């Protein structure tokens, strides 16, 4: 069977599974729609949380990020896992005890303030929408690369699938689909990794392969990678390139942001008990860690494989015509490009940029087909001067998109077709599961917090459920539209989503639990101060509302305040939030007696009942 048919079979099979689950797990009450009736087993919720959390970026891009940044990419590994420690110990059990449906609902009740609730809703919607655009794009890209359908068609198919199970099943449908999606994505991720580790080091466990000798016994894998890279003019793989200060700050921002992202928090509202919420955070991290501890092995091994394949056994380059077929296949997708700077017909990879501005610009024929050069390679219009970088033996001649490290890995390692088909299904599972979780967070904020909480408190449950479904459908359409027409800032939004969650939501939740005397004025002032400074800091360097050219200062280390990059500012915003909130609450009236009792009540597990919407 050919690759195309196999891929259709795998992707189609998983989609049928998701639809089957949707029909089986329909939601008939608001409790089921918002929090799956609070009946999800902690291990099952852990698995669903892992799928919810691990997005198209974790699945497709992270290993590539590690491959190209080496040690410095550790900030993502630690930042996106360490947040679960904060979530487990500082938020999840208490919010579960509170026993309501949404994050803004807690903030609104704890701070006896509709303003606080509205600020929380706005943060939630902005963070979740920016995040969901990336998922929809991921769906379109995965369809385009593996099934060769148009990007827009891919997004439409993805939207329809999510529509069926999220609108019908709400959180209940999403939970069980996410469990299935986790299984698909983790097989798709680990199987190629096991094969690659086995081939390269003889050790089938990628986590151990990372520290093993190469199969030929010549050297340790990482030592070899370090020496190969320094020979090519790169900095050694395991050596730090950025400053420790920014690494600490970025790691902290990602951790606090992770713990404050509403679509992750609401997953812990679905378990029956407080103690289940504690254990469930641990299980979530188990399932996440399977992928996150595999990724460093995939990244380093893929990098070594790629350099060896391109530069060949004599490290002098490989003739373009002699390269394996995957090189040309991915060149056709635009993720790889070659320009023969020294005119020897061989492809060489070293430090430095082969193209002006970093990325290649491909030339097309008049009929729109790619223009081909003398070796049948794709012609590019922007080759760089082709200078040799310092310490490099020759000029770099290729561009490699980092997403290739996962997408093309099975081909680079020469794995059977069914593994490639599995990777396609896995990438889609990762994108769809995260999209669904985000869409639920958005729709519950609209139907439960805005509609029922603020505009129409006397709405019947039946009508609220209907409103939830309509809000979900609307959110899917908006997300799909933005996925097809991504605003120019789509690449920048990760900083924004994490910055918002870290600087506004996390501190408000934490103080609501751990600081009984925190009052409404303090909390609102803190949220606005944290949110405001973070937004301003990001906009000053990246442009107001990300409009190119509207930045007040160039986005480089010389202009950053104390050398803090905009992506790392979330932790500073959180600190500002804490300080402002505490100072303001000290000089204003203490919260009323019943609120202080509420805080005492959520601090003890006893009495956590079923979810209630009132």
């Amino acid at each position, binding site marked *: 069977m050919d690759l195309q048919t196999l891929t259709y079979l795998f992707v189609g099979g998983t989609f049928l599974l998701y639809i089957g689950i949707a029909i089986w797990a329909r939601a008939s009450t608001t409790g089921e729609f918002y929090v799956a009736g609070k009946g999800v087993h902690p291990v099952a919720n852990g698995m669903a949380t892992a799928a919810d959390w691990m997005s198209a970026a974790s699945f497709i891009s992270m290993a590539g990020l590690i491959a190209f940044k080496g040690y410095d990419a550790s900030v993502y590994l630690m930042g996106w896992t360490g947040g679960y420690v904060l979530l*487990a110990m500082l938020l999840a059990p208490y919010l579960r005890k509170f026993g309501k449906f949404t994050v803004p609902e807690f903030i609104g009740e704890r701070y006896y303030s509709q303003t606080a609730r509205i600020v929380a809703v706005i943060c939630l919607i902005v963070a979740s929408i920016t995040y969901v655009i990336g998922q929809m794009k991921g769906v379109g890209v995965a369809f385009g690369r593996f099934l060769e359908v148009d990007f827009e068609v891919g997004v439409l198919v993805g939207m329809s699938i999510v529509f069926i199970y999220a609108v019908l099943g709400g959180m209940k449908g999403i939970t069980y689909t996410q469990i299935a999606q986790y299984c698909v994505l983790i097989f798709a991720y680990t199987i190629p990794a096991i094969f690659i580790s086995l081939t390269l080091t003889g050790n089938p466990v990628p986590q151990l392969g990372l520290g093993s000798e190469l199969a030929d016994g010549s050297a340790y894998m*990482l030592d070899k990678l370090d020496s190969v890279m320094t020979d090519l003019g790169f900095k050694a793989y395991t050596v730090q390139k950025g400053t420790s200060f920014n690494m*600490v700050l970025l790691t902290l921002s990602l951790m606090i942001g992770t713990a404050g992202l509403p679509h992750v928090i609401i997953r812990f509202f679905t378990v029956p008990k407080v103690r289940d919420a504690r254990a469930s955070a641990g299980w979530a991290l188990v399932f996440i860690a399977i992928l996150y501890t595999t990724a460093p092995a995939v990244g380093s091994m893929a990098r070594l494989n790629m350099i060896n394949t391109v530069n060949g056994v004599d490290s002098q380059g490989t003739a373009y015509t002699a390269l394996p077929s995957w090189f040309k296949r991915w060149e056709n997708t635009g993720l790889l490009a070659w320009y023969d700077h020294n005119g020897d017909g061989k492809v060489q990879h070293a430090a430095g940029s082969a193209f002006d501005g970093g990325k290649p610009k491909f030339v097309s024929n008049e009929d729109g087909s790619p223009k081909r050069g003398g070796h049948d390679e794709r012609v590019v219009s922007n080759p760089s001067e082709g200078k040799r970088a310092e310490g490099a033996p020759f000029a770099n001649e290729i561009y490699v998109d980092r997403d290739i490290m996962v997408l093309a890995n099975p081909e680079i390692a020469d794995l059977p077709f069914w593994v490639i088909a599995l990777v396609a299904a896995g990438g889609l599972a990762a994108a769809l599961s995260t999209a669904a979780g985000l869409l639920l967070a958005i729709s519950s904020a609209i139907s439960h917090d805005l509609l029922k909480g603020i505009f129409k408190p006397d709405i019947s449950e039946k009508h609220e459920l209907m409103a939830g479904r309509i809000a979900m459908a609307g959110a899917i359409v908006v997300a799909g539209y933005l996925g097809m027409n991504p605003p120019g800032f789509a690449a920048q939004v990760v900083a924004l989503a994490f910055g918002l969650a870290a600087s506004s939501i996390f501190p408000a939740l934490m103080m609501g639990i751990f600081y009984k005397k925190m009052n409404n004025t303090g909390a609102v002032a803190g949220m606005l101060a944290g949110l405001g400074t973070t937004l301003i800091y990001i906009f000053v360097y990246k442009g107001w509302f990300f409009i190119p050219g509207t930045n007040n200062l160039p986005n480089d280390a010389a202009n950053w305040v104390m050398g803090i990059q905009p992506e790392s500012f979330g932790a500073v915003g959180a600190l500002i939030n804490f300080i402002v909130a505490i100072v303001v609450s000290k000089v204003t009236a203490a919260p009323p007696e019943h609120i202080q009792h509420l805080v005492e009540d959520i601090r003890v597990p006893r009495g956590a009942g079923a979810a209630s919407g009132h």
Partner: protein
Amino acid sequence: MSGSSGDYWKANIRLVSILLVIWFVVSYLFGIILVDVLNQIQIGGVKLGFWFAQQGSIFTFLILIFVYAKKMNELDRKFNVHED
């Protein structure tokens, strides 16, 4: 908050503080700030600082959460605030 529930909360804060100190040490201290020092030690084919940054901290986080869950369940019973 009075009597045993106040003591329960204090015990909780003490436990979480200890666990978060470990959380900080393995990631920020071992993985970033002291990485060059720890990289002098190599275990198998991995430098220790690099290992903490890319593997060790994640494994430690896992242990921390499960220890927290277990200890909190014990505290719940000890102070008689457990569910059912």
